[in-house]
């Protein structure tokens, strides 16, 4: 420690001490990053932080800025404003050191089609400073853990989509990086392959810091609790999935299904205590299914059951319907769009 202080300015030493007191710093620290491509603002004041040895699911519709953010984290692009620190190192000041720490699988998994799988992996390994026995050991490890042994000597242009994806992942893992940045690692895979990749990410997440992006929401929940949702270049939500659902949706949801259409069903359901809104589902003229939204914690299903008994309705369905990540996502993204529109209106006025 003291040797460290001698080489640095006193101020840096103090910073070091405060950091030590605060505990381990974030592995990935994105602060106020903006990036513009011509007229489009691809990233607008994005901040994110990822703790060591944790997995962040990076969600967003296509074109939201996920890939741009990852390109900046991996030093492929430089931010117009803001800073990115990887394990404390600024990406603009020390890009080579940052790149050494990161394993990156870009979108669409670019590979050299003219090479064989093992040649390609050896090339990336050598570019990352591996050689001799260490390179051989790492090649063996990635081939094994990414399930590439059977295709190891095949030309890359002959590989199926699934094996291309695995080769891309193996390439990102070859130097045993502390950080993995995976841009849509499961896109275009079949369900069995998706599960395999998902398990591998989960497994690797125990020892590495991982950010993976996707626009398929079901892929996130089994892998990690921590998500960040980006829309039109802005982070619209960042936190644990359960928390986000509660915050975004506010309250609960119950589905009521009647055997026969009842004329006063809609009005009666609206009159129930604790009901915020009722939406008829499927048939608009003679609805038999309704979605009830509650604003508080009052159990809507009990109220609806009592109402049905009172009115003599035959209930075919009555159940609480928990919000899915899709609902949360759509709510957050559309709220953001509405907020953005209001904001733009303000600017015009």
């Amino acid at each position, binding site marked *: 420690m003291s040797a460290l202080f001698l080489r640095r300015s006193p101020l840096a030493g103090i910073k070091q001490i405060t950091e030590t007191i605060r505990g381990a710093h974030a592995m990935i620290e994105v602060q106020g990053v903006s990036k513009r491509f011509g007229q489009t603002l691809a990233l607008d004041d994005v901040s994110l932080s990822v703790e060591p040895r944790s997995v962040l699911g990076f969600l967003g519709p296509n074109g939201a800025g996920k890939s741009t953010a990852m390109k900046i984290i991996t030093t492929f692009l430089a931010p117009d404003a803001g800073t990115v620190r990887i394990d404390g190192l600024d990406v603009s000041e020390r890009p080579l050191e940052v790149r050494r720490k990161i394993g990156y699988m*870009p979108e669409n998994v670019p*590979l050299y089609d003219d090479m064989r799988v093992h040649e390609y992996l050896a090339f990336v390994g050598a570019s990352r400073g591996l050689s001799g026995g260490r390179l051989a050991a790492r090649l063996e490890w990635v081939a094994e853990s990414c399930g590439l042994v059977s295709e190891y000597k095949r030309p890359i242009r002959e590989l199926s989509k699934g094996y291309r994806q695995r080769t891309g992942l193996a390439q990102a893992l070859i130097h045993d990086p502390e950080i993995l940045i995976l841009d849509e690692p499961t896109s275009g895979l079949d369900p069995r392959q998706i599960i395999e990749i998902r398990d591998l990410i989960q497994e690797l997440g125990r020892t590495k810091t991982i950010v993976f992006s996707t626009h398929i929401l079901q892929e996130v929940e089994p892998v990690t609790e921590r998500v960040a949702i980006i829309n039109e270049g802005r982070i619209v939500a960042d936190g644990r999935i359960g928390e986000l659902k509660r915050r975004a949706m506010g309250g609960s949801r119950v589905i009521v299904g009647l055997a026969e259409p009842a004329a006063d069903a809609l009005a009666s359901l609206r009159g129930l205590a604790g009901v915020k809104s009722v939406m008829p589902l499927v048939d608009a003229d003679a609805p038999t299914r309704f979605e009830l939204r509650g604003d508080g914690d009052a159990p809507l299903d009990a109220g609806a059951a009592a109402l049905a008994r009172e009115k003599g309705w035959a209930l075919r369905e009555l159940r609480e319907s928990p919000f899915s990540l899709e609902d949360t996502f759509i709510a957050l993204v559309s709220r953001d769009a509405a907020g953005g529109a209001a904001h733009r209106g303000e600017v015009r006025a």
Partner: protein
Amino acid sequence: MRNTGVIFRRELAAYFNSPIAYIFIIVFLVLTAGLYMTPFFLQGQADMRGFFGLLPFFLLIFIPAVSMRLWAEDRRAGTFELLMTLPLRASEVMAGKYLAALVFYLIALAGTLPIPITLGILGNPDGGAIVTGYLGAVLLGALYLSVGIFVSGLVRDQITAFILGAIACFFFVGIGWVALFIDGWIPGLGTFLDGAFGLSDHYESLMRGVLQLGDVAWFLVLAAAFLALNTYWLEGRKHG
């Protein structure tokens, strides 16, 4: 140095992994040797001036065909992003690619060595002129390739890289022809451009067997300038 070597080996292998490389070398040899040998038998002179005289025009087509893929292919396939996130300096990647293209050209050029050997057997050629002629051919290739790799970085499409590369290289040959026209519009400009960028003076003196440091330096300085521009572009691209 080691990093440049890694990229160099992959790029050189990429040339020979595709059949285009072999077709390229065969066509290059058939055309250059064929077009040279036809008048050779008519003239009956044991020198290679005809061969070296044709090269600046042949290479206008051949060199951009070698260099067009250097960046354009990576940018189209997306492997550019992979290369630029490896812990290598932009200049190291650039140097590896350039040297691979240069070595590929040297291999094709080496295929013409049976010509001077035949001349040596049949007659008594001026060995010095042949050596400086080959030096000129190497320098010419190095210059055209530096232009080609620079142009390849600016576009995504290989065909565009080829055409722009050929046009850019043609500038060195063509400026001498139009210098007087340009002088007619803006007095002195044509002469200045020809003096600075005209290929013929420097190349022809090497062809004649005259080895001057200035001529060699002209090629090297211009090639270095285009390679520096290429590296500059690679580093500036991040902010685009």
